[in-house]
C-alpha cells in the first residue's frame, strides 16, 4: 500500500465485488456476535440458522457483526434480501430464528412481530415487502438512535469486524493514508489539538498536547500504547468497540504513532476479553497483510508494528504507569509522576498512552478535520462520548452522544426512562472513580468540567441508573469494596485508608454506625483523594463523598434511626409491620421471610411477629402494594 489513490482503487474493487455479490441476488443474514450477543445466546442462534439454511438449501450468506448498542434487544439478527432494506430482529429465540429463515429469507415476508428496526439500504423494493417494511421503524425513527451521534461506534453492528474489506468499503484506512501521505506529523498533531479531543479514559487530558509532548522528547525509540484495560464494573464501551470495529482502533494508532514518531505499539487488553483479543489479532494480521502495519507505510518511510499484551486482570493496571510496569513484566504498581510517560515511559522511553475510544475518534478527525469535530459537543469538551447505559433504565446498551447533552436526555430520550412506577433516584457516572448524581441535577450537561464539579467524573463512561430501591450507602459501599480490593497496596492512604472507610460503611450498613462516622468518612475520603500516589486512590472515595454530599440524610437515617430508607441493608433497626389497611393478603411476604415471622390467611391482612423478625427487609422489598414498613 503506497498511497491514498491505491487505497481508493482497492476500495472500489471491494465495492465492485460487493455489488457483484448483490447482483448474485443472495440474501444476507447477519448475527450480532459481540460478547453481549453471545451471552444472550447468539452462538446457538447462529448455529440454528446455519442448520436451517442447509435444510432449506438456501445460498443465503450468513455472517456476523459486533454490538450495535441495543444490548437490551440481544440476540439480534439482521436480514437483508437482495435490494431490500436491512431488517433487524430483536430478542430472537431459536424458534424465532427458524421462523425468520422460513418466512423472511426463504419466503420474502418480514416477520413483523419480531422486527425492531430497519436500515434503509433497499433500492428496488416492490409490492408486499415494501408495505411491510414501511411499518417497521428505521433506526433513525427509534428513540434509542435518534439522539445519538455515532462517530466512534459508526461501524459497530454494521460491518463484519473480522473483515478488513468491509472496513475499507466504508472508507476505512483513508484517514491514515491521508495523514501519512499528505500531512506532516506536526500537522496531524495540530489537527487533533485543533479538534479539542480530550482523553476518553476519564481524566480528559488534551490528546494533541500529550502527543506533542511525546513528539518533542528526543529519543531513538518511542512507544505507543492503547489502554484497553477496561475494568470498571458495568462498563463495556471499549470491549464493544474492539469487538465491533477493531480496525478503527488500529487506524487511530497508526496515525498517532506517525504523529509522535513511535515505531512500536502495544494494545494492553485484559485477558477477560477473549473475543476482543481474537478480533484484534485477526485485524492486526489483516492490516499487516494489506501493508497498513510494518515497514515504510504508504511509502512515507515510517515503520510501525503493533503487538497485543494481555493484562492479568488487575484494575490498577488501567493506571498508565502500572500498565507499563505490567508490560515490562513487573508487578503492576503505579510509580510517582513526574516523570510522565511522554518523557520516560515504557522501558524508560518516551511513551504515549491513550484509551481505546480516544484512538477511535482520531480517524474521523483526520478525515473530516478539526472544525467538523469541534462543531460537535461543547466548547471545552468537543466531540462525542460513548456511555454504557445500565441499571434501572428501559433501553440498556451502548450509546454515543454529543458532549453537552444532559443526563436527562440520555436517560429519558435515549434510554426510554425507567420502568412504570419507578422513580429515578440517582445516576452513577464514572464507575468506582466516579460519583452519584442526584435527580435534581439531571439537567447537568455531560462534559468533563460539569461532571467533576458535581463530584463525579467522566471516567471511562459507565452510567448506572438507580431508582428508589437503591440504598445510596450500600452503593457507596459496593464501589469502595471494589477499589479497596483492587488497590495495589503500595501507598498508605489507599491501602489502609480505603480499608478503614469500608469498615465504617460496613458498620453503618449493619446498623452499627456511630455518631461522627459521616465526618470521619469525609475526613478520610478527602485525605485519600489528596495524598494517594495514583488516581486509583485519588478517586476511590468519590462514590462515598458524592453520596454523602447528595444523600446525607440516608447516612443519617442508617446511623441515627437505624433505618435503611430503601430497605436494602439487612438487619437494621426494629421489626417490620404490615399496614392492615393496605395489605391484600397475597402471601408473598410470608414466602420470602427466612424466619417464618409472617402469618395470615390468604386474602386476609397478614401480621409479622416482632419476636421473630430479623429486620432483614426481604418482605418489604417483595410487597407489591408497599404495605410493609419498618416500625
Amino acid at each position, binding site marked *: 500500500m503506497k498511497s491514498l489513490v491505491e487505497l481508493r482503487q482497492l476500495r472500489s474493487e471491494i465495492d465492485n465485488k460487493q455489488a457483484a455479490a448483490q447482483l448474485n441476488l443472495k440474501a444476507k443474514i447477519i448475527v450480532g456476535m459481540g460478547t453481549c450477543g453471545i451471552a444472550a445466546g447468539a452462538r446457538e442462534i447462529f448455529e440454528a440458522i446455519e442448520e436451517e439454511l442447509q435444510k432449506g438449501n438456501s445460498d443465503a450468506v450468513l455472517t456476523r457483526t459486533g454490538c450495535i448498542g441495543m444490548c437490551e434487544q440481544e440476540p439480534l439478527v439482521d436480514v437483508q434480501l437482495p435490494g431490500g432494506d436491512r431488517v433487524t430482529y430483536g430478542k430472537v429465540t431459536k424458534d424465532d430464528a427458524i421462523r425468520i429463515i422460513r418466512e423472511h429469507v426463504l419466503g420474502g415476508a418480514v416477520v413483523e412481530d419480531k422486527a425492531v428496526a430497519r436500515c434503509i439500504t433497499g433500492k428496488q423494493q416492490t409490492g408486499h415487502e415494501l408495505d411491510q417494511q414501511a411499518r417497521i421503524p428505521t433506526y433513525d425513527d427509534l428513540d434509542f438512535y435518534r439522539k445519538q451521534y455515532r462517530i466512534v461506534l459508526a461501524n459497530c453492528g454494521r460491518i463484519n469486524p473480522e473483515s478488513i474489506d468491509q472496513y475499507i468499503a466504508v472508507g476505512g484506512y483513508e484517514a491514515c493514508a491521508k495523514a501519512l501521505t499528505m500531512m506532516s506529523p506536526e500537522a496531524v498533531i495540530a489537527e487533533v489539538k485543533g479538534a479539542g479531543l480530550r482523553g476518553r479514559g476519564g481524566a480528559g487530558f488534551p490528546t494533541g498536547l500529550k502527543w506533542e509532548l511525546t513528539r518533542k522528547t528526543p529519543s531513538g525509540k518511542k512507544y505507543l500504547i492503547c489502554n484497553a484495560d477496561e475494568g470498571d464494573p458495568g462498563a463495556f464501551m471499549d470491549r464493544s468497540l474492539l469487538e465491533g470495529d477493531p480496525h478503527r482502533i488500529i487506524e487511530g494508532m497508526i496515525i498517532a504513532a506517525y504523529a509522535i514518531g513511535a515505531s512500536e505499539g502495544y494494545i494492553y487488553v485484559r485477558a477477560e476479553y477473549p473475543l476482543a483479543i481474537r478480533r484484534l489479532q485477526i485485524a492486526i494480521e489483516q492490516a499487516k497483510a494489506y501493508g497498513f502495519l510494518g515497514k515504510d507505510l504508504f511509502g512515507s518511510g515510517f515503520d510501525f508494528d503493533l503487538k497485543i499484551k494481555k493484562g492479568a486482570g488487575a484494575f490498577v493496571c488501567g493506571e498508565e504507569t502500572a500498565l507499563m510496569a505490567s508490560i515490562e513484566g513487573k508487578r503492576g504498581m503505579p510509580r510517582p509522576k513526574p516523570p510522565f510517560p511522554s518523557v520516560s515511559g515504557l522501558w524508560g522511553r518516551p511513551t504515549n498512552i491513550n484509551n481505546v475510544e480516544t484512538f477511535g475518534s482520531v480517524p474521523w478527525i483526520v478525515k473530516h478535520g478539526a472544525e467538523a469535530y469541534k462543531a460537535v459537543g461543547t466548547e471545552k469538551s468537543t466531540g462525542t462520548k460513548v456511555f454504557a447505559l445500565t441499571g434501572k433504565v428501559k433501553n440498556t446498551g451502548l450509546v454515543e452522544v454529543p458532549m453537552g447533552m444532559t443526563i436527562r436526555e440520555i436517560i429519558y430520550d435515549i434510554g426510554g426512562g425507567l420502568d412504570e412506577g419507578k422513580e429515578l433516584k440517582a445516576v452513577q457516572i464514572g464507575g468506582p472513580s466516579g460519583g452519584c448524581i442526584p435527580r435534581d441535577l439531571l439537567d447537568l450537561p455531560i462534559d468533563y468540567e460539569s461532571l467533576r464539579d458535581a463530584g463525579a467524573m467522566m471516567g471511562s463512561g459507565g452510567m448506572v441508573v438507580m431508582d428508589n430501591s437503591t440504598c445510596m450507602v450500600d452503593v457507596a459501599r459496593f464501589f469502595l469494596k471494589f477499589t479497596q480490593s483492587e488497590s*495495589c497496596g503500595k501507598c498508605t492512604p489507599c491501602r489502609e485508608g*480505603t480499608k478503614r472507610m469500608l469498615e465504617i460503611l460496613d458498620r453503618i450498613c449493619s446498623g452499627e454506625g456511630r455518631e461522627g462516622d459521616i465526618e470521619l468518612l469525609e475526613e478520610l475520603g478527602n485525605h485519600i483523594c489528596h495524598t494517594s500516589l495514583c488516581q486509583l486512590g485519588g478517586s476511590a472515595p468519590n462514590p462515598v463523598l458524592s453520596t454523602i454530599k447528595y444523600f446525607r440524610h440516608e447516612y443519617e437515617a442508617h446511623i441515627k434511626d437505624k433505618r435503611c430508607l430503601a430497605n436494602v441493608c439487612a438487619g437494621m433497626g426494629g421489626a417490620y409491620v404490615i399496614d392492615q389497611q393496605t395489605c391484600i393478603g397475597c402471601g408473598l411476604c410470608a414466602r420470602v421471610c427466612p424466619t417464618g415471622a409472617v402469618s395470615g390467611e390468604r386474602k386476609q391482612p397478614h401480621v409479622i411477629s416482632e419476636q421473630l423478625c430479623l429486620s432483614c427487609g426481604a418482605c418489604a422489598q417483595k410487597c407489591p402494594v408497599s404495605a410493609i414498613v419498618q416500625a
Partner: protein
Amino acid sequence: MSKITITIDNQQIQVENGITVLEAAREAGIEIPTLCYHPDLSLAGSCRVCMVEDINSHRLLASCVTPVTDGMQISTRSAAARRARKLNVELLLANHPNDCLGCGRSGSCELQKLAADMGIDRKGVDRFAGQKRKRAVVDQGYSLKRDPNKCILCGRCVRVCEEVQGVMALDFAGRGFDAIVTTAFDLPYSEINCAECGQCSVVCPVGAITEISEIDRVWAALDDPDKFVVVQTAPSIQVSIGEEFGLEPGTIVTGKLIAALKRLGFDKVFSTEFSADLTILEEGYEFINKITNSQKLPHITSCCPGWVKFAECNYPDLLDYLSTAKSPQQMFSTIVKTYYARQIGVDPASIFTVSVMPCTAKKFEKARAEHRDSGFQDTDAVLTTRELARMIKELGLDFINLEDAEYDQIMGEVSGAATIFGTTGGVTEAALRTVKEVLAGEGLDRLDLGLMGTREAQVEIAGRTYNVAVVSGLSNAAKLLDEIRAGESKYDWIEVMACPHGCIGGGGQPIPGSFDTKARRAKGLANIDQAKQIRKSHQNPDVIRLYEEFLGEPLGSISHELLHTSYQARDVR
C-alpha cells in the same frame, strides 16, 4: 545543572534544578519526616509521610518524589500538610501491633519515633482501629525473621534486595489491604535465592525484619557451669558497637568491648582478626600456588558467607574459582575446639564457641553441615553487633566508662592486615601484603581503593602485573561473575563482600547505617591498622607459633583437613 529559586516555609533558597523538594528542604535545614525514603535506594513515594503543601495550587505533594520547579512555594508546616502527615502515620498505626514494649526495634523504630514526634496519643492510635493483618511470623532457617504484622510496606527491603544486592528475594504480593512483602511462593529463605546478608533488616524502619536472636542460647551457655564459653569478635565490631552506646561511628572501643565480654561471663575473649591472619596465610599460599602452577584464574575470596551462598545459588558453575579457605569465623572455632582445647587442657566437648559478627549470614554459615571438622559443630552461636549490645544493656554495664581490657592468650595477637578485613578491599590488601613479601621479599604500598562499588588495581609482584578487583554489593559482584562466565574477565584476583562497603556495612551492624556512618567506621579500622606494629599476617607471632606447634605449614595436611572447605550448588527458585 542550573540553579533555580524556590521558597520553603518563607525561606527563599537557590537549589540545583532536578533535585527533589525533600532534598531542597534538607539543604535549607528544614526537616521533613520520611519513612519509605532511604538515601541509598531508589525513590518509591509510597508511605506518603513526607507530604508538604504547594502554596500556589494548595495541592499536597510527596516531597521525596516531587522535583523542584522554579518559583515553587512550599509549606512544610501548613495545617493541611501537618494533618496529612499525621493521618498517614495514624493509618499505619491502625494496622500495626503497636506492641513496642515487646519489640526488638523499640528505640530504633522509625514509626515509633514519628508517632512520638507528631504527638500521636492513644486516641490517635485508636481512631481507625479495625482489622489488622494477621500472618504467621516467618522464622524458619538461621539468619532472618520476618514478622509481616509489623510490616508497613515501605518497600525498603524489596528495593535493597533488588537494587543493591540483585537478589530479589523479596517482593510485594497480594492486593489492597492484603498486600504483603514476601518471598516467591512464600517459601522459606533456605529454599530461595536469599543470600541471608541481612541488608533488609538494616533498612527496615520497624521490627518487621530482624535477625533470629541467639541471645538466649548464649546466656544459657554462660549460665552453664559445665560449659567453657569462648567468644571471638569480628574486626569491624570494635569500630561500630560504640554507636549503640551513643558514641560516634568509627570510635575505637576494642578495650571496652573486651572488658564488656568478660563482664558478661565469657571464659575467654579473642578477636577474629587472629584467624583472619590465618586465613591470609592459607588463602595467600593458595593464590601463590595458583599463579605459580598456572591454574585457572581469577582467584575469588570466600570469607563472606552471604557471597558464598549467592554464588552457590546463582553461579554454581563458577564455584571452582572460589578459595577453599574457610572464613575467619570458621577457622577460629575449629582451632579453638582442636589446638586451643589441647593447649589449655579443656575437653572440646565442653567448649561453647560464640562469635560476634556484623553479619546475619554468619548465623547461616555456622550451621552448614561442612563445618564440623573439629568433631563438633565448630561454631555454636553467632551474635550480631546489635544482639551483643542488647546483652550488654541487659546487664546495665556502663560501656563507655569500662576500663579497657586485653584479649586472652595464646591467640591474642593480631596484625593490622587482619583488622582491615572488616572493610571492602581489606582482604585483598592483607593477602597481597603477604603474597608480595613471600614471592618478592618486598612490602606493598597501601592500595586504599575506597569503599564504593567495584574498584580495580594493578599490582606488580616479582615482575608480573596482576589485575585485582574488589567489589561489594552483590549486584556489582554479579557483573564480574557474568564476565567470567562469558570468558571475558581480565582479573587474576577478585574479592567479594556481599554487603555494600564490606563488613562495616554488614547486615548485623547498628541501625541506621548510612554511607557516612560506614565511611567513619572504615576510617576507624584504617587507624587501627596504621597504629599497629605488626601489619602483615605472616608476622603475627601467635600464628607463627600455631603453625610450628600444630598446623605445620600453610596448605599442609592438617590445614587442609581443618581450615579448608567445599561448596555446593543450590537448586533454588
